[in-house]
């Protein structure tokens, strides 16, 4: 493992151990609902399901159709806020 990936792994571990990752996850989820991202994506799901057929839809279908669109639809303001929080965490929990 390169030093870089070692460092990333350690950061991730710390994020999880301190419960910060769960908090960030909840924050992101709340923000995405608030800004209508979830509703937008759900509407897109409906189209996909109607197209593929209610009986035949699989998780893989949904993941393949939804994930790229979901990533693209996240508003910049939400991204900014999350990034800010992450960077704050990184700054607080590593020695400089």
């Amino acid at each position, binding site marked *: 493992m390169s030093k*870089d990936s*070692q*460092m*990333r*792994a*350690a*950061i*991730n*571990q*710390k*994020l999880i151990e301190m419960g910060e*990752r769960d908090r*960030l*996850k909840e924050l*992101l*989820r709340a923000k*995405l609902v608030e800004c209508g991202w*979830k509703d937008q*994506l*759900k509407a897109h*799901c*409906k189209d996909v*399901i109607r197209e593929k057929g*209610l009986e035949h*839809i*699989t*998780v893989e279908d*949904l*993941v393949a159709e*939804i*994930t790229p669109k*979901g*990533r693209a639809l*996240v508003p910049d303001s939400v*991204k900014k806020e*999350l*990034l800010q929080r*992450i*960077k704050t965490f*990184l*700054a607080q*929990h*590593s*020695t*400089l």
Partner: protein
Amino acid sequence: MKMDEISMSSLDNSKLEGVAQDILSDLVEDACLGLCFEVHRAVKQGYFFLEDTDQETMRDFEIVDQPGVDVFGQVYNQWKNKECVCPNCSRSIAASRFAPHLEKCLGMGRNSSRIANRRIVTGNNTNNKSESDQEDNDDVNDNDWSYGAEKKGMMGPRRRMDNQESPRMLMKDEAFPQ
């Protein structure tokens, strides 16, 4: 690998930004997957297109707001004034008193066994005095073996395990043979 061993000074801002972006990317992916699973479950359980039901059917399920009736339209105090006929004693009992009455009438349930046990004990006491001979009378008056007076204390915790054949009851006749 401890966090405090990693010096962030070795990371410049762009690297920091890169790490933060990756973390964000993971979180967004989690959110998308979460939605996929939620939707998939809704589809398989049949409630995904629920809000798209036609107006006609929707009206069937509207909240009911009438007196004497609950939100589903069912009458909820229907059973208050009804009377039931007990299958055991054929008496007509009020619905709210029916369950306790059945308990006593059929001789089942916690209370009725308590009452029955108490009756046995007091029954034994009075029986002893009139029927048994001198020897047994002595036993009853013996502090160790008296049943009637002690029933609250002795009978309480042990009562559940006792039955008619319990050693204590059987030994009553054998104790202190004179």
